C-alpha cells in the first residue's frame, strides 16, 4: 500500500515506512500540497488535506474506512509506505522536483519487497522510518533534512508542516475538503 503526497514544502522524506498509528494518521490526513499563485504573482505552497484521500466521496464516518484499511493491512501483513513525489532539497522555488526515475525506483523496490528487511532510521520531526538504503536511489536523496542547504530552516518548515497535520486532524468533520 503506497500513499502518495506531492509535498511542495519539500520536507517529507521521499520514502518512509508507516507503523499502525502512522497509517491511520496519514490515511485520515490525505495530504498533498499544491503550488498556488497569489494575487501579487508570488507562488507558494498551499496544503491540501482530504480525509482518506477521498473526502468529497465519503458517506460514512472516516474511522469506518480507516478501520477497514488497518484490518486488511494487519490480516495480509501488507506494508504501508508513504512517498513524497513533490519537492526535495527545499520548498517549491528553492528545491527540485523529485525525480520521476527515483520515484519509480522506490516504487519498484517497494512492490518487489526489496525494502522488507532493510534497516530504517527515524526522521527527527515526523518520526517516520526512512530506509537506510534503496536500490538504484542515491542515499542523499533519501534524507530530506540533509538535502536542504540550511538544516535549521528545514527543521522550522518541517515543524510547521507537522502542526498543519495536527490542526487538520482536529478539524476533520468541521470543514469538508472538496479535493479528491
Amino acid at each position, binding site marked *: *500500500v503506497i500513499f502518495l*503526497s506531492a509535498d511542495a514544502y519539500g520536507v517529507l522524506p521521499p520514502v518512509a515506512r508507516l507503523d499502525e498509528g502512522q497509517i491511520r494518521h496519514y490515511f485520515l490526513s490525505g495530504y*498533498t500540497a*499544491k503550488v498556488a499563485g497569489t494575487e501579487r504573482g508570488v507562488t507558494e505552497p498551499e496544503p491540501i488535506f482530504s480525509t482518506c*484521500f477521498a473526502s468529497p*466521496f465519503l*458517506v460514512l464516518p472516516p474511522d469506518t*474506512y480507516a478501520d477497514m484499511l488497518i484490518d486488511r493491512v494487519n490480516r495480509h501483513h501488507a506494508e504501508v509506505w508513504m512517498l513524497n513525489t513533490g519537492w526535495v532539497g527545499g520548498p517549491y522555488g528553492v528545491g527540485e522536483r523529485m525525480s520521476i526515475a527515483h520515484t519509480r525506483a522506490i516504487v519498484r523496490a517497494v512492490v518487489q519487497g526489496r525494502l522488507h528487511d532493510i534497516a530504517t532510521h527515524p526522521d527527527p520531526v515526523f518520526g517516520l522510518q526512512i530506509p537506510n538504503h534503496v536500490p538504484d536511489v542515491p542515499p542523499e536523496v533519501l534524507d530530506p533534512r540533509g538535502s536542504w542547504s540550511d538544516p535549521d530552516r528545514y527543521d522550522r518548515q518541517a515543524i510547521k508542516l507537522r502542526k498543519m497535520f495536527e490542526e487538520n486532524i482536529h478539524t476533520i468533520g*468541521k470543514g469538508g475538503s*472538496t479535493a479528491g
Partner: protein
Amino acid sequence: VKAAPSRPELSGTPAGPADRRNLSPASLYEHAIRRDEAVIVSTGALTAETGKHTGRSPKDKFFVKEPSSQDAIWWHPGNRPISIAKFDALYQRVQEFCDTHEVFTQDVFACADARHRLRVRVITELAWHSLFARNLFIRPTADELASFTPDFTVISAPSVKADPAKDGTRSETFILVDLGRRIVIIGGTEYAGEIKKSIFTALNYLLPAQGVFPMHCSANLGSGGSDVALFFGLSGTGKTTLSADPSRRLIGDDEHGWSETGVFNFEGGCYAKTIRIRKESEPEIYAATESFGTILENVAYDPRTRVPDYDSEEKTENTRAAYPGPASTPAT
C-alpha cells in the same frame, strides 16, 4: 446500513424509451452531433464542452435525510442534508423533463467482482453523457441486458436548474443523493465526472456493509498474479502515472474495492487527465485519445483542421479523456 425502505415511488423510476437505450458508440456519436452537443476531431474522438462547470461541484451535493441512511451518514459541511420533500419536488421536475424530452439510457455495472456488482441505470439528457457512462462503467453482455433491473439509478439533466430559494439548494446546480430510494439526480451541470463520482459515493455507502473496503486509489498486479499494489493520493501526486507500469498489469486507475478475497475495480474505463499529454510519457492515454469512441472533455481544437490541442488551457486545466478499458478481472 439498513435495507431500502418501502417509501412509495413518486410515479415509478423512469427507464427511458427503448429506442434510445444502450445505444452503441457510433449511434451516440450521431445523436450527439445531430443535437449539436459535440464535434468529431481529427483523431476520431468525440469532443464535448461542458460550459460553466469544468469540474465537480462538491458544494452542491446533498444527501436526502431519510430514515434508512440518516443515522449512518457522516454529516459535516461536506455532506449536507436535504429534506425528502425538497428532493421529491426536484425529482418530479427531472422526471417531467425526461418524459417530455429525448433522453438516453445506459444499463451498466459497477464493481468487477460479480458478488458485489451494482446494476446501475444511467439516464441522461445528453447523448455524449450516455457514451461517457458506457465508456466508464462495466458493459453487461446482451444476455445480462435482457434481464437487467437496476439497483441504482443516476439521472443527469443539466437543463433542469434549481431555484435555491424554493428548492433548498445552494445554487442552480444540484447533485442530490437519495440512498434510500437508490437514486441520484443531477442538474445544472454538464461536467460528466459528476456521474462517475455519484456512483463512487453510492459504493462508499453500500460496500462497507458487504465487507468491502471502498478506496479512492489506483491498483496494479505483479506478474505472479497475487501481489497487488495500491496507490492512494490526491490529484497531481502520481496515482495514474505510477500505477502504469509496463511490468505489471493495471487493475484500474481510480476506484477499487478490497473484499475478503481480493481487490477489484469499480469501473470499466478511465477518465484520464490530458493537459499537456505527450505520447512518449503517457502512451496508453495518448493512444486512447486517437481512438473512435473516446470522449475528449473540454479539450481545445483547431476549428478548421480539427486537430486537438492538449497544451491549451483555454477552457480549463482539467481536460479529460473518457474511454473504455482496462479489462475488468478482479485480482484475488
